[in-house]
């Protein structure tokens, strides 16, 4: 990602503000995995892992790992009170049936129409979509957390994705190191700018036009 820990945590903290008590939330790998660290103390959230865990808790301490209790990325986790295990069809049934309130995931590109391209890295081998298509298409709210620009300084928010799509028109919100955008009926809208960045800087680093919310916040 090339983002420092502080910036990654800033993005994760902002994403965490979207989560409400009692929600079912699926987190992707990378920055999304930092989100639980930024929830208010005592907030009960059912984290969902597509390999069949609802109510996933943090990684256990070294030495206390259980090889048969891992997240979808294959790393040891724990189960919180009220949590449960299920098979893969039920786990994805929760997603397709609209019972997963939110998914927070990384991306390579997002278009101004909310198209998501996060599964094929150019020049690398095709990894397969895993559960990304179902999550992108069927989670009630899709939040993308990513750097505003790629390593060449080009905007990852674009008019039209040049990379293969995971799902079209699925993204509801984008949180980057510079700003927060929402995607609604009126299209892409800038709602927050992270100081010390400025609106001008965001415009310069966004590959498409966007509306600016009347109550734009600089935070």
């Amino acid at each position: 990602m090339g983002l420092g820990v502080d910036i990654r945590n800033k993005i994760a903290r902002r994403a965490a503000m979207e989560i409400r008590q009692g929600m079912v939330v699926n987190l992707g790998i990378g920055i999304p995995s930092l989100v639980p660290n930024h929830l208010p103390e005592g907030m009960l959230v059912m984290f969902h892992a597509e390999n069949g865990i609802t109510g996933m808790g943090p990684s256990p301490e070294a030495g206390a790992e259980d090889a048969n209790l891992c997240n979808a990325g294959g790393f040891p986790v724990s189960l919180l009170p009220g949590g449960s295990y299920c098979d893969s069809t039920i786990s994805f049934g929760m997603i397709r049936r609209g019972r997963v309130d939110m998914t927070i995931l990384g991306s390579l590109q997002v278009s101004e129409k909310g198209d998501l391209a996060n599964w094929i890295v150019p020049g690398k081998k095709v990894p397969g979509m895993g559960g990304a298509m179902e999550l992108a298409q069927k989670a009630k709210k899709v939040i993308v957390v990513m750097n505003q620009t790629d390593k060449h300084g080009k905007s990852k928010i674009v008019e039209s994705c040049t990379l293969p799509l995971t799902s079209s028109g699925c993204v509801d919100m984008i949180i980057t190191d510079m700003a927060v955008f929402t995607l609604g009926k009126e299209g892409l809208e800038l709602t927050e700018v992270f100081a010390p960045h400025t609106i001008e800087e965001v415009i310069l680093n966004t590959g498409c036009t966007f509306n600016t919310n009347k109550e734009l916040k600089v935070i």
Partner: protein
Amino acid sequence: MNNPFQKITTADELIRHFHDGMTLMYGGFGGVGSPPTIIEAILQSGIKDLTLIGNDTGFPHIGIGQIVSQGRVRRITTSHIGSNPIAGQLMTDGKMDVEFCPQGILAERIRAGGMGIPAILSDIGMDNEIVTAGKQTCTIGKQEYLVEPALTAEISIIYAKKADSYGNLIYDKSARNTNPLCAMAGDITIAEVEEIVPLGSLHPDEIITPGVFVDYIIPSEGVNWKWAWE
């Protein structure tokens, strides 16, 4: 152990059922919940040209990934190969055909196979050529759906925590994943288990896979690979 249904056996006894060119389905997710002892027996047997069906290709040294990495697989239906670079290389080199299927739809196709349903209808990835390639569509009302054929296999290999001697199974935490589905979709289903318990000692309400679906039970010798996190 009392063996009234003659289901309890060993991997060595069962290897005669495996042959070149066969279709093999396996439980597991990133190697978690894949049966290590059966996989080791398959590796030792040297069978090749396999058609595999399973969630992912594990890691090169973990789970089914070991069989894939040895170039023993001609074709695979799966959702993800990203953790196993050798699988990607075999695909790029044209040595292994890969049919990618969205993960939950893949699981549902396996379930359909196990339930005796010929296909399911899906609205996942309909605008994606990789998903739709070679598949029929079907219109119900005004909505178009993708016809996703059911999947079965000559043999399914699965992993469970406990079996009784009839093959009633319970699973272990997130090692359940695709195992109960694969258990139903094999013409022959082999369950590798941590513990074999007497008939009647599993609470009937806690059994996840009824023994009806399980043909053979073998005791697990445990994982013989190192996990990525270790």
